[in-house]
C-alpha cells in the first residue's frame, strides 16, 4: 500500500487453519469455526459476511484474543499471536455495542485506552485523533448524549487511538438507521483508506460487505464458502449458498436439466422453458439448479432460447421495475428486474432470457457451481 498515511506499520494478517470447537460435557462438541485460512495483505479491508451463527464473530474474537483458538495459527506480520493475551496483540476493536464507558466523557474514554499503557502525551494524541476524525466538538460530551452515528465514530476513535496494527470492526453499522448507515459507510471507507489500517469488518449485511470490502469472505456454518473481491463474489459465485446469500433482490433458483449442444449448453426448465448457459463442465441430461439474478434477466429476443412467463405482479420503482413471474412447470416465482420504462402488466405473457455466462448452474445435491 502506497496510500497509507499514518499506519506505516499496517501489517499483514494470516490465519492458518484456525478452528474453534466448543466442548460441553454431555453434549456433542460444537465446531463454530472449521479451519479458516486467509492471507490478508497490509492495509486491505476485508469483510466477513454470513448469516448469524456462521462463525464470523467467533473468528473476529479469536483474532482479537477474546476467544481461545482451539487449533491453528494467527500471525500479525511475522508475529504469532494466537497465544498472546488481547492486550499484547496490538489490535483495535470497534465493538458492536460501541463499548463506551458511560461515566466518562469522550475525551476520557479515548484516553482510557492509553492509560493502561501509561503512554506519554496521551492528551495530545486524543486531540490529534479527534481532529482527524472531525469530532473535536464531541470530546466533552458523555456517551449518553451522543447520537448512534456519533457513538460509532467515538468507538472507531477508541479502537484507533493506540494506533493498532490491525483494526477489527464488529457489525459497525448495525445500530444505525438507513440514512446514517449510508453516510457512515462512506466515511468508514474514506477513513480506512486514509489511515491505511489492515481492517476486518464483520457484517451480516451484504450491501455493507460489497461496498466496503477490498475482498470479502462469505461464511456459512463455520467455513468460508468463497473468498474474493466483491466482483468475484457477485459475478462468479462459487456455489449456491454464496449466490443465494449475496445479491438483492435474491437470486432466482429453480430446477432444470442441462442439455449439451454443439454451440454450448442449454438448460430446460419447466414445461418448455429454455435458457442458454455457459457451463462446459455440465454433462448432457444432468439435473441442475439454475441460478438467475433478477438484474441479469431481460426481455428475450425473438430468436433466442427463453423462459415464457406470466406476469403476476409488476412493481414500478421508477429507476427500475420488478416483475414477479410464473413460469409453467417451475416451482416458485421468478423475479426479473427491468429497466425504467419497461412496463409489464399483470396477466401478460412475456419471454425472458439472460447472457449465457450470467446463467449459473449448480449441482443440486452439493450446491457446487458447474462451470
Amino acid at each position, binding site marked *: 500500500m502506497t496510500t497509507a498515511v499514518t499506519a506505516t506499520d499496517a501489517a499483514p494478517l494470516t490465519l492458518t487453519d484456525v478452528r474453534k470447537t466448543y466442548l460441553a460435557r454431555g453434549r456433542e462438541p460444537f465446531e463454530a469455526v472449521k479451519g479458516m485460512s486467509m492471507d490478508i495483505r497490509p492495509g486491505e479491508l476485508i469483510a466477513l459476511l454470513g448469516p448469524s451463527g456462521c462463525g464470523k464473530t467467533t473468528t473476529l474474537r479469536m483474532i482479537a484474543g477474546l476467544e481461545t483458538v482451539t487449533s491453528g495459527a494467527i500471525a500479525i506480520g511475522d508475529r504469532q499471536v494466537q497465544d498472546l493475551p488481547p492486550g499484547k496483540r496490538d489490535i483495535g*476493536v470497534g465493538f458492536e455495542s460501541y463499548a463506551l464507558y458511560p461515566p466518562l466523557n469522550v475525551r476520557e474514554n479515548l484516553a482510557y*485506552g492509553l492509560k493502561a499503557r501509561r503512554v506519554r502525551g496521551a492528551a495530545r494524541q486524543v486531540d490529534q485523533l479527534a481532529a482527524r476524525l472531525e469530532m473535536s466538538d464531541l470530546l466533552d460530551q458523555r456517551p449518553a448524549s451522543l447520537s448512534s452515528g456519533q457513538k460509532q465514530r467515538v468507538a472507531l476513535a477508541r479502537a484507533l487511538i493506540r494506533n493498532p496494527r490491525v483494526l477489527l470492526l464488529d457489525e459497525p453499522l448495525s445500530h444505525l438507521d438507513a440514512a446514517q448507515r449510508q453516510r457512515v459507510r462512506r466515511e468508514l471507507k474514506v477513513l480506512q483508506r486514509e489511515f491505511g489500517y489492515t481492517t476486518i469488518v464483520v457484517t451480516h449485511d451484504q450491501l455493507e460487505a460489497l461496498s466496503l470490502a477490498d475482498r470479502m469472505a462469505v461464511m456459512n456454518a463455520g467455513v468460508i464458502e468463497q473468498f474474493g473481491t466483491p466482483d468475484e463474489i457477485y459475478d462468479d459465485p462459487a456455489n449456491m449458498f454464496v449466490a443465494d446469500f449475496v445479491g438483492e433482490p435474491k437470486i432466482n433458483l429453480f430446477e432444470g436439466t442441462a442439455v449439451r449442444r454443439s454451440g454450448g449448453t442449454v438448460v430446460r426448465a419447466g414445461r418448455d422453458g429454455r435458457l442458454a448457459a455457459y457451463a462446459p463442465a455440465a454433462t448432457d441430461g444432468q439435473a441442475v439448479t439454475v441460478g438467475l439474478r433478477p438484474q441479469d434477466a431481460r426481455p428475450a429476443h425473438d430468436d433466442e432460447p427463453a423462459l415464457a412467463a406470466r406476469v403476476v405482479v409488476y412493481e414500478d420503482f421508477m429507476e427500475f421495475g420488478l416483475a414477479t413471474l410464473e413460469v409453467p412447470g417451475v416451482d416458485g416465482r421468478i423475479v426479473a428486474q427491468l429497466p425504467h420504462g419497461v412496463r409489464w402488466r399483470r396477466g401478460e405473457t412475456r419471454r425472458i432470457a439472460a447472457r449465457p455466462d450470467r446463467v449459473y448452474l449448480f449441482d443440486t445435491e452439493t450446491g457446487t457451481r458447474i462451470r
Partner: protein
Amino acid sequence: MAREMMPGRRRFTAGSVGADLLILLWFVFSLFPIVWMVLLALKTRSQQTSTYFAFSPTLENFGTVMSRRGEDLTSVNFSGALLSSVLNCGGAVLVSLLIGIPAAYAAGRWKYRGSEDLMFQMLSFRFAPELMVVVPLFVIYNQTGLFDTTYGMIWVLQLVTMPLVVWILRSYFQDLSPELEQAALLDGYTRRRAFVMVALPLVRPGIAAAALLAFIFAWNNYVFPLILTDSEATTVTVAVTKFLGGGGQAYYNLTAAAALIGALPPLVLALTIQRYLVRGLSFGAVKA
C-alpha cells in the same frame, strides 16, 4: 353527571370514586397498627391499657427505653441490643458483599455446568424456613462457642443476606455489556483490573441497593437471634419483645417505644434507596 367536564381533566365517575375510597380504606386499615403503636408509645404506664384517644402524651418512654433506667426497670439492655443489631447486620452485609460481589460477577458472566442449579440452591436459602435449620445450629453453636457472639450472628445471617446480594448483583452484571470489559482487556488491562476498574464502578447503584436491602432483611430477622443469642449479641427484634416481660410485668408502652426506635433505621434506609428498592425486591427483574 350533569356538569360538562373540562377536556383533559380527570373524570370523576362512580367507578373511579369507588376505587379511590377503597384504596383510602385499605390505607387506613393497614396503617392503623402503626398509628396505634405510636399512640401507645406516647402513653404512660397507667394509661397503656386505656383505649381512649384523649390522653396527655409524653416522650418519656423513649428516654426510658434507651437509658439505664429502662434496664433497671425491665432488665432489658435496649441500647446494647441496638448496637448489637448494627454490628451483626453491618458485619453480615459486609461479608456478603466481599464474597457475594465476585460470586455474582462470575454467575452473571459465565455459564458452566450446574451454574443455574447453584444459583437456585442459593435462592432456596431464602425460602427455606429458618426454624428448620435453627435447632441443629443451636447445638453446633453451643459446642463451638459461637452462641451469643457477633461472629456467630454474622455467620448465620449470611443465610439471609448472601442470596439477596448475589441474586440482585448478578442481574446488574448481566445487564452490563461484556464488551466494556473486553475493550479494557484489549487496552492492556488484566482481567482483574477490568473487573475492578470497569465493571465494578458501573454496578455501584446495584451494590448500594443490595447492601441496604440485605441490611434491612437482616435487621428484621427474629428467629436466629432469638435462638442463637442470649444477652451479648442479642438484637433489637428480640429485645423489643422482652419489654413485654411476663407475669403482669408487661410494659406495653415501652415495647411500643422500643419497636418504633427499632423500626427507624430500616425505614430511613428504605426511604433513601426507594429508587433502587423496587428493582432490588424483584431480584433485578425490572429493567432500570
